[in-house]
């Protein structure tokens, strides 16, 4: 394996001077990353919840939804971002469409599994108690499906945070822009900062989601 780039300037893995004078840049990329992730996860959930509920009732719709979004899921994100550029430009929309699509698959699957696993006895009991279908859904089934939905949320959040870095190729990237800058300019510091902050962001987000889960569904076994 060849040695790395052969410049005489000894490029430390973190140049603290550079970091100190570029805090606004780092914060701006971090913010962009959070924004892109939040929109993708929230929109994905907003689509997946109703979609999952409807698909749960209908076997054929369920198959169709899983098939369509499942195939979408196997397409590499790089290809989707690149292919959308001529249609939606070098914009947040281009980044969000694939990200939301992936999240819908992850979340719909978990919504379906969650609803599937509601014990039949509970459903019978609810019916027996006089719950109408919509009330039964909102007050019995969905709450019981929460652990599974939260598990899906955690997967969606961490996945999205990783995928956002790839949008650097279309001029966005969040923290990925730092990574990309490090690559193009043969510069270690932005690469390391981008990489480390992405990991930290993902770990923090995952922990926050786990904490939110414990708050919302305290009876659930930790996933």
């Amino acid at each position, binding site marked *: 394996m*060849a040695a790395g780039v052969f410049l005489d300037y000894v490029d430390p893995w973190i140049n603290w001077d550079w970091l100190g004078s570029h805090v606004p840049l780092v914060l701006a990329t971090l913010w962009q990353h959070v924004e892109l992730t939040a929109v993708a996860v929230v929109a994905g959930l907003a689509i997946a919840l109703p979609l999952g509920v409807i698909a749960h009732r209908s076997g054929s719709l369920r198959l169709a939804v899983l098939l369509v979004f499942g195939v979408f*899921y196997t397409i590499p994100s790089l290809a989707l971002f*690149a*292919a959308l550029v001529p249609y939606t430009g070098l914009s947040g929309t281009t980044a969000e469409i694939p990200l939301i699509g992936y999240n819908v698959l992850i979340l719909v699957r978990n919504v379906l599994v969650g609803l599937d696993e509601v014990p039949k006895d509970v459903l019978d009991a609810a019916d027996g108690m006089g719950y109408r279908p919509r009330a039964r859904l909102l007050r019995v089934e969905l709450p019981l499906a929460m652990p599974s939905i939260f598990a899906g949320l955690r997967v969606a959040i*961490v996945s999205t945070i990783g995928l956002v870095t*790839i949008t650097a190729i279309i001029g966005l990237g969040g923290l990925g822009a730092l990574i990309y800058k490090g690559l193009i300019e043969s510069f270690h510091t932005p690469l390391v900062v981008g990489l480390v902050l992405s*990991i930290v962001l993902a770990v923090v987000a995952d922990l926050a989601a786990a904490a939110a889960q414990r708050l919302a569904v305290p009876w659930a076994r930790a996933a």
Partner: protein
Amino acid sequence: MSLLGLVWQWFMDPQHWQGSNGVPTRLVEHLHLSVESVLIGAVIALPIGIALGHYGKFGTVAINISNTGRAIPSFGLLVLAFQVFGLGDGPIILALTALAIPPMVTNSYVALREVDPDIKDAARGMGYRELAQVLRVELPLAVPLIMAGVRTSALQVVATATLAAFVAGGGLGRYIVDGYATQVYQEMVAGAILVAGLALATELVLAVLQRALVPRGLRLLKAPTTRRAAVFKVA
């Protein structure tokens, strides 16, 4: 001509099926990167996960390692590998292996933990010694979940290998990166179709392999844990 028409033409063009930028070459490159990474990853991850699961040690680490593993952006890891080790397949495989290891460690750990303790007792009672017990009793029962881990890793690696093109790697990602740089959409779409196809094929092959490896008795029991095996999108 519509984009789909152009893509069709791209696939029909014999030029695209020969030479160093032809589909067979790129496919082989992609497979080479993926298979090596998953194999090396498995050689490292499975023994560790199995051992930890069998003895029940370091559970929190084993379970959380895949959490931390998925938190690493694959793009950044590839660039890091390039900056540390330079050009070539080696650094790329190193990065991909690092990504492949966590799911396999976690899944094999959980797989071994979920083996019914009564069965383990029975085996011990029958006189099985440690290694034999693991190999002949616990492993066969753990295969479904272990294979789920291997499948997860394999899919992640196949998807991430497309990013190798960013650091002058070969593979099917070249069509996407080069197509984007020159804005030749049919090349991009063709590359996307090829990678998606490869991912589906990988899934199929490993599903068949899993069926072959799972002992018949188990196959009849539907293991509910495999349904929950979440496939993370990392590239």
